[in-house]
């Protein structure tokens, strides 16, 4: 049971208020029609599964209903930071090593 800081409500809330929505920073290609089948398949289905630092998209579903990003260590389950959609993470895998 994670304790997650919502960057919009500006306080910690229980995990049961949130849902994870998959890997963060998966941008929809700007011109889908120009994508090959392979490129489109990569966009739709292929996701990282790192041991260590990972960036995830979460939504405060039972609260403000806002999506935001979570940087989490998949080994220790520590949440390293949360940041809003459109922002860049300050903790990334290389730094953490």
């Amino acid at each position: 049971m994670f304790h997650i800081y919502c960057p919009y409500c500006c306080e910690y809330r229980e995990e049961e208020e949130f849902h994870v929505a998959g890997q963060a920073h998966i941008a929809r290609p700007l011109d889908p029609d120009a994508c090959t089948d392979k490129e489109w398949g990569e966009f739709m289905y292929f996701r990282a599964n790192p041991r260590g630092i990972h960036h995830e998209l979460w939504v405060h579903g039972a609260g403000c209903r806002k999506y935001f990003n979570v940087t989490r260590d998949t080994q220790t389950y520590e949440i390293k930071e949360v940041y809003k959609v459109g922002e860049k993470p300050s903790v990334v895998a290389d730094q953490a090593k």
Partner: protein
Amino acid sequence: MTQDLSKQSNRLLEGGRIDRAKPLTFTYNGKQYKGFEGDTLASALLANGVDIVGRSFKYSRPRGIVAAGAEEPNAIMQIGSTEATQIPNVRATQQSLYAGLVASSTNGWPNVDMDLMGLVGKVGGKMMPPGFYYKTFMYPKSMWETYESYIRKAAGLGRAPKENDPDIYDKMNQHCDLLIVGAGPAGLMAALTAARAGARVIIADEQNEFGGSLLSSKETLNGKPAAEWVKDVVQELSGFDDVLMLPNSQVNGYHDHNFLTIQQHCTDQFADRAPNGQIAQRLHRVRAKWVILATGAHERPLVYGNNDIPGCMVANAVSTYINRYGVAPGKDLVLMTSNDNAYRAALDWHDAGRRVVAIVDSRKNPKGTFVEAARERGISILVGSGVIEAHGNKRVTGVSIAPLNDAGDAVVGPIVKMAADTVATSGGWSPVIHLSCHTGSRPVWNDDILGFTPGKTYQKQLTAGAINGAFATKEALSEGASAALDALSNLGLAKSDIELPETEAIVEGKAMALFHLPHTKPTSKAPKQFVDYQNDVTAAGIELACREGFESIEHVKRYTAMGFGTDQGKLGNINGMAIAAKMLKQTIPQTGTTIFRPNYTPVTFGAIAGRDCGELFDPKRYTAMHAWHVERGAKFEDVGQWKRAWYYPKGNETMQEALNRECLATRESVGILDASTLGKIDIQGKDAREFLGRVYTNAWAKLPVGKCRYGLMCGEDGMVFDDGVTSCLAENHFLMTTTTGGAARVLSWLEIYHQTEWPELEVYFTSVTDHWSTMTISGPNSRKLLEKLTDYDVSKENMAFMDWKPMTVAGVPARVFRISFTGELSFEINVQANYGMHVWKALFEQGEEFNLTPYGTETMHILRAEKGFIIAGQDTDGSVHPFDLGMSWAVSMQKPFSFIGKRGMQREDCVRADRKQLVGLKTLDPNVVLPEGAQGVLDPKAPIPMPMVGHVTSSYWSANLKRSVAMGFVKGGLDKMGEKVFYPLADGRVIEAEICSPVFLDPKGERQHV
């Protein structure tokens, strides 16, 4: 059977924290006994001289009480005086005694004193070597059920009640600055320090009183008995508003981010069944900013021959029974120890007026406060020696003692036999690190204390007292205070004034590393030396596992089943690791660490379920007209959490008869459906149209105000996931409808795209599902009915198909949509939900002349199937795109923005000609209704496995068409019109059907346009 109830042969004449003025009668294995308030079931059984509390799992050997706390491996009881209140798996050492308590041993068949399996055990011990699960019970598979029941019965797993538990168990969410686990000296000192600083504190302890080891200690604090200090501290703590004290509360799980679960026994320490209105057990779900684990330590028994005969105990348990419960569990004691600390058991035994036969100390030259105290009392101390074997059958009758070498691993002199009925042993203390392991932290070996202490953690966790190896009271108090000060500092709270109580000066000599005593015979030939009592794992078994090639302790544990009982090997794991390490010629830390998982002790299902049972198990959602449906005798169908009217049987009608009547009435006159559960989303903003164009497959740029349009929603893979009608309310204002089950998902879908992909679009979405009551009147007379309730001109000329108009219906302002899911002339009336019932009833008042017939979801399904309309989720399954559904008319490939699903549905696999496509299915025999889910084949004579071409998705009896109607997928089906497809069924029948258009009724769509 009669016996003297007052006889408590092992009860001391004085002492203990029991209330001798309050005798309690209880039943154990069908016999009545007496104990006192303040007893545990274990102390009361010992007081009554009950030696045997169970039979062992594999060998069926008699077993007695070994310990006095949560670590007890043998005294596993079934509690409960009635069938409904049965609780299995209760440790007698943790069960408070109450009047009328009924307990029985759970292992031991046919009874614990004379066990038929004992014969098997004695004869067949060698037949059950380690790994016997794998070796014996794997084959033949068909015998597994037999084995399982035999093992369960023999293994002491207890049984669940066959009747509903009448008690209430609930859950409570808690938050605190500091959760302190354990209310012994370290925990209490920490709590006091934090409470005085104003912190929000929760302190929980598994026992019925706070105090931990201090309750059974003869030490003094500030010159007074330790228990008095405990009383003062508890008194002070209870005065703080922000301190929650939880006795009888086991902290069972330590989860991520300092989330811990506590099982509080609210009433089952004093009653079989909770008094009316009270909660039996409560699961506290705690989010703690900081945690102090002050969980103490468990004393390790030593491993020696026949160390499982009743009367063999851990040393500290002997002291606890004497000091806390006024029970001496025997007459003549032999104490075997590798450390000073355990001498206290002999001192207490002696001071209780019983005979200490000898203290057997593995060390050559013990000295220290307790050693001196023993000498002062004239107790015989045999140094450099060990108890290598206990004798007896149902109770210890004596021991064999032998001199040991310096390492303690070989017998180096003649054996001496001594008579005794109790053997107390101590190999030192194992810190209770279980909770610290739950979040993945690996404990580290500490050579100074010969035990594992908590390792690096990512939790906001501090530890204090015996868990760190600080076994002395003075150190525990000091660590408790300093851990609390650290926590206060981490929390940014000011420190409090705190003084440590004065403790007695105690000097303890160095302990010796001793786990497994040698025997004159090799381990494999010596009498059984038990490591894990609950799973009957012996030293010989572990050595055999090592010889068979298991090197990792995790593998040894799985092979021998060590630590796999309900006690998770609290007493035995470290001894087992030491034996394996020695066998593998390496150190204990090299052999590995031992990890514990939640829960610390077994948790009742009641506590886990809480109030999420019965009526409260899952929310039931109701529409504003629900009471009417109930009154009308509707049968309900679950759609998500909604309770939707399914059909409305009249009199003795069967379901099919009711459906036939509802279907005919609707097509012949007018029917009405409560469609309030459809998802409804209000969409506002200048970019609303653009947004709709991106999430729907069809075009929205030109939809005029006042018009409605059907749309399909796909995922990026091009597969349909929802559909619905969206209406243009004003230039920049739309109302979207979704399927009942898809409402939440669609709203999230819109939000995630808006928030993460297209935040520049000016649009807002707001759910109005609950705000509007929606009632659909459908059928040729629906206009006439509506005209009776409104002054608005609802003629074809003023209100065409797919128009919506604001009007007043039955005096209530309404939005009426002329859309149809039945293919009939239909009006969907939406009113503010507080007035839904008013309008619904008014429709029935006016509808009598038209035989207005309420219909439910089943008739809705039939009527739409007659028209070939799909239901997303029934005729789609996440693998079909709009072209598969024959709905190319609902896709606009020309839209400038590449809408969601466009690219996906053009992938190579999506444009194959032989994709499964949705078609109508007309059975050759019109009276036969295809079963939904039936798989079609083109050649019913093909050899099995036959190539399958697709399944039936929707199939009904149509009263209107007087034949069956169905839809289903067929590979390349859209190009196979008129061809045959066969459905071989499990019962041997083969149903033949013709592939046809799914529109069975009114193919030109004239009826809905009138």
